[in-house]
């Protein structure tokens, strides 16, 4: 019989520590499959964040480097500048990238560092038990806003893809999700495109993936997928935010 689908060669055999139904696992697979299909796995170097995906270095079947909280873009800058012909990526959550590491990601994008960032936005701090993130939606409950986030107290949630797209050094920014098969296919296409543009030395590339955290959202995995579609996708529009290739035409 012919194999139609099996576990990606871009992943190790280690079992993931993520909660049941957590989208981190699906997003790992898409990154791994993209690297394999583009023939980039052997040369790839990934940089892990602090957050639930802190152990991602155990799962990707390529060289990986752990960074201090939020500093993955700074570490990736150093790796890319000393390994300019190799595919480099950071994998970061929203607490890591949009809160403690905001300066690092903004300046890496401004400098047009030629690596790819996979930004997993689950609207909460997962690892530390569900505190409000800069991405937490208005009205969404978290341990540090038990009655729901308010604009008056915490401002409006940050849209990182749009914000980074204003910088000339950022050549590609797209927001995707993996909530159903159609969106999962689009997410994989976006990740492959980002790596392709990186290998063409175009500049900084960014893929924001809306993701679930069933555990801290207090929902079953399937309910969390519905909640993402109804609430997150409404505030964080899916699609290409910036693509210098189409803009040049």
């Amino acid at each position, binding site marked *: *019989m*012919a*194999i*139609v*689908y*099996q*576990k*990606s060669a871009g*992943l190790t055999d280690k*079992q*993931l520590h*993520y*909660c*049941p*139904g*957590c*989208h*981190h*696992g*699906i997003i*790992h*697979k898409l990154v791994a499959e993209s690297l394999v299909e583009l023939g980039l796995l052997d040369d790839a170097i990934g940089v892990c964040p602090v957050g639930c995906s802190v152990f991602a270095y155990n799962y990707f079947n390529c060289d990986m480097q752990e960074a201090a909280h939020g500093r993955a873009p700074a570490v990736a800058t150093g790796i890319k500048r000393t390994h300019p012909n190799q595919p480099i990526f950071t994998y970061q959550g929203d607490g890591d990238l949009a809160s403690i590491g905001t300066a690092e990601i903004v300046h890496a994008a401004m400098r047009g560092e030629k690596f790819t960032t996979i930004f997993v936005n689950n609207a909460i701090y997962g690892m530390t038990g569900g505190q409000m993130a800069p991405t937490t939606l208005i009205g969404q409950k978290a341990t540090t806003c038990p009655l729901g986030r308010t604009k008056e107290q915490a401002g409006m949630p940050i849209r990182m893809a749009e914000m980074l797209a204003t910088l000339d050094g950022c050549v590609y920014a797209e927001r995707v999700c*993996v909530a*159903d*098969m159609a969106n*999962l296919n689009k997410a994989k296409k976006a990740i492959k495109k980002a790596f392709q543009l990186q290998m063409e030395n175009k500049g900084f590339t960014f893929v924001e993936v809306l993701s679930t955290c*069933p555990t801290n959202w207090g929902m*079953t*995995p*399937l309910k969390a*997928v519905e909640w993402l579609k109804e609430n997150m996708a409404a505030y964080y529009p899916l699609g290409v935010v910036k693509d210098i290739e189409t803009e040049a035409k």
Partner: protein
Amino acid sequence: MTAKVTFDQERCKGCELCTAVCPKHIVVIDQDTINSKGYHPATVSDMSQCIACASCARMCPDSVITVEKE
């Protein structure tokens, strides 16, 4: 065409994401089995209906599922 879907049930966390994307609605949770993690794993109820689309396998966060056809 014959299709074969296999589950590495020890890796499964019973999250049900695979059950929601099967166009034939044949991916189900096996309530009669418990793996060493303590979860009821997923399985296919009627393999003859499978079209080997691999949706279940591609959606699984834990790479539990292999799909084959001939």
